[in-house]
């Protein structure tokens, strides 16, 4: 598989969140960013196909997820 490298500029807050997520999940920051990209693309494709993505709270109430 062809691998490419890039430099990513993050704010201190963004880096803190990335660090926290990586620690929480026990993986490195690259894995978190790859997961985020996969998730973003998967949701984007569904929405482009006219599907809706919902978040359900503990009371089973749904709110629609809006992506930029």
């Amino acid at each position, binding site marked *: 598989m062809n691998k490419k490298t890039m430099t990513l500029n993050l704010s201190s807050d963004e880096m803190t969140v990335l660090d926290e997520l990586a620690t929480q999940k*026990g*993986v490195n920051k690259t894995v978190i960013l*790859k*997961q985020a990209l996969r998730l973003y*693309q*998967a949701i984007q494709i569904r929405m482009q196909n006219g599907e809706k993505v919902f978040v359900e709270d503990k009371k089973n109430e749904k709110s629609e997820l809006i992506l930029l």
Partner: protein
Amino acid sequence: MNRKYNEAKVFDRQNKQYIDSKLYFGISSKNIDDYEQLWIPMFYSEKKEVQDRLTVEDAHWNWRKKVLLCEGILAYGTYALEADNKTQGMMITETVMHQSKLQSTESLIYIEFIASAPWNRSYLVPHPKYKGVGMVLLSQAIGESFENGYEGRIGLHSLPGAETFYKNLGMIDCGFDNHKQLNYFELPIDKASELIKEFST
């Protein structure tokens, strides 16, 4: 194009020895050709003989179409196991959109589809060829789960004929899913570690 692969062993039941196989990342046109030219005719020619015992539950799966639908979507992983220059098994995983039913705050690797070649299935042929194809594919999914920080969790909806196989592996039957009309099975993290250890020895 060079395809990335891992070496794996499967057991040749007829010659009673382990042989080398390759687990490829990505399902190629060769794998789809094998499915269409070698698998499908066996599903249907053998089917009459086994009709009374069991139908081939995945005979209708269109792997060409499934692989095409996954193309370019990063969340899907496609895998093909080759031995003896033939496709012995295939699997499609999904890596970010499924949550664990055993631990609802955790994610897992969801196995969308997994299948072994018909000549490896004991209910289809009197002398099945290779043993361990499903386990190689499942181990890949478990490994993928560890790489993603999901601690080995994997989940799948099982066709009725495969339920015993998954139960014997230690997967938990989480019950009937009305949406899929199949039982949902999940591998807990302690079992995942055990299976990976067993498989690597």
